[in-house]
C-alpha cells in the first residue's frame, strides 16, 4: 500500500525524465538518510566562497533586486533595498532552501509536534532551535523583540559567530556586506513558507575592537509584513 514504487507514470502526468534502471532515484532514498551525516567544513567554506564571489561579480543591474521588491507578497518598502546587491543575491539564493527546509524539518519531527508554527513566537522558536540546530549544529544565541515600541513587527535572531562567516573577512570598503545574508534568505524562506511573509536582513553588530568577545556577532532582523501583524493581533484577542 504505502510502498513507493518507481515514480514512472505513477500519477498525474507522465514524467519525461529518465531514471537509472537500478533504482537509484531520489524517490528510493529515505528522506532521513543524510539527517545526521557530516561533511568537511572546508568543503562548505570553498563552495560558499565561490558562491559569494560569484554573487558579487555577477552584479550587472539592479534589476533582479527590483523584481524582488515588486513581489506582490511584499508591498511595503524597506530601507534595506539600497544596500548591497551582493547580499540581496545571497538572500535570494537562500530563500528556496528555507522553503524546502521547513517541510523537511517538520517531516522529521515526531508526529505530535509536526504542526506548522501558528504564531510568530512559535515560528521564531522553530527557527532559533530546529533550523539552527540542523544547519549549524547549535541553537541560535538569542531571540529578541525590538525594544522600539514603534516597530512591533521587528524581531531579532542573534548568532554570535555565524558558521557561514567563519572563514570570511569582508574588505573594508564593503563593510556593509554580511555574507550571512545567505542565512537571512533561508530564514526568510522559512517565514514565507509558513505564511508569515517577512523580510529578513543580516547585520554585523560585533565591535571591531581588540578584545571584543564576538567580533562577528550578527543580528538577523526579521520584519514581518503588516498582514501578519494584523492577523496576530486578531489571534491574540480570540
Amino acid at each position, binding site marked *: 500500500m504505502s510502498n513507493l514504487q518507481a515514480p514512472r507514470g505513477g500519477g498525474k502526468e507522465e514524467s519525461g525524465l529518465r531514471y537509472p534502471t537500478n533504482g537509484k532515484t531520489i524517490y528510493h532514498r529515505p528522506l532521513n538518510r*543524510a539527517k545526521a551525516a557530516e*561533511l*568537511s567544513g572546508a568543503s562548505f567554506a570553498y563552495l560558499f566562497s565561490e558562491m559569494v564571489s560569484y554573487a558579487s561579480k555577477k552584479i550587472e543591474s539592479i534589476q533582479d533586486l527590483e523584481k524582488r521588491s515588486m513581489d506582490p507578497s511584499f508591498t511595503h518598502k524597506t530601507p534595506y533595498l539600497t544596500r548591497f546587491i551582493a547580499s540581496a543575491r545571497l538572500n535570494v539564493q537562500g530563500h528556496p532552501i528555507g522553503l524546502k527546509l521547513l517541510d523537511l524539518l517538520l517531516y522529521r519531527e515526531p508526529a505530535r509536534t509536526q504542526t506548522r508554527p501558528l504564531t510568530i513566537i512559535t515560528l521564531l522558536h522553530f527557527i532559533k532551535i530546529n533550523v539552527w540546530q540542523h544547519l549549524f549544529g547549535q541553537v541560535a544565541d538569542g531571540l529578541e523583540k525590538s525594544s522600539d515600541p514603534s516597530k512591533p513587527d521587528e524581531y531579532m535572531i542573534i548568532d554570535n559567530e555565524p558558521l557561514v562567516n567563519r572563514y570570511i573577512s569582508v574588505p573594508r570598503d564593503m563593510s556593509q556586506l554580511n555574507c550571512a545574508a545567505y542565512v537571512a534568505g533561508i530564514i526568510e524562506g522559512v517565514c514565507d513558507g509558513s505564511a508569515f511573509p517577512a523580510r529578513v536582513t543580516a547585520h554585523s553588530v560585533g565591535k571591531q575592537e581588540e578584545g571584543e568577545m564576538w567580533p562577528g556577532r550578527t543580528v538577523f532582523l526579521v520584519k514581518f509584513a503588516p498582514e501578519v501583524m494584523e492577523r496576530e493581533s486578531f489571534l491574540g484577542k480570540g
Partner: protein
Amino acid sequence: MSASKAARSDLLNDGRIWKGRVDKVNAELVVLTYGTIVAQLCKDFDSDYLQVNKQLDKMGYNIGLRLIEDYLAKSNTMRRCSNFRETADMLAKVGFKIFLNITPMVTNWTSDNKQFSLVFEENPLADFVELPDDGRAQDELWYSNIFCGVLRGALEMVQMQVEAHFISDVLRGNDTTEMRVSLIRYIDDELPPEDD
C-alpha cells in the same frame, strides 16, 4: 595521569588528533548550498546548460587551486606521487575521503596509464536532486561538473595538467556516475618521469 599522557602522544603520532579536530558541518548544509548554486546558475544563464557546466567547472577550478594546500596539510603524505596511477589512488582514497567522505572507484585505465575513470557509488552533492524535466537538462547538464574543475585546479598546482569530464550520471538516467580523467602532461620537467 601518565596513562592519559601516553594516550595523548599516541593520538598525536598516528594523526588521529587532526581527525578529531577537523571541522565538520551538517552534510545537508553543503548539499543544499551546492544545489542553490546550480539552480542560480541555471537561472542566470537562462537554462543554457552548456554555459552552466562551464561556469561550474570554473568555480571548481578556483576551489581546486586553493584546496590542494588543504589536502597536503590534512593528508599527511609529505611526498609526491611517483606516477599517475598513484595520483589517481590518492585522489580517490584520500582527497575525496577528506572533503566529501566518499571513495570513488578508480577503474578503466587505458594501457598507457594516462586515463582512468572515477566511478561514484555515492555522490553527496546529488542528494535530493532531480534535474529539470524540460527535455534538455538530462542531455546537457552535468550536475556535479564542479568536481572536474576541482581536480583540474588541484592537480595543476602539483604540476599535472589534466582534463576531466563526466561521461555518465545517475541524474541523467545512467546506471552509474562516471568521470573520465586524462593526464595531458606534467607541467614541470623536473618531475620524475613516469615509470610503471
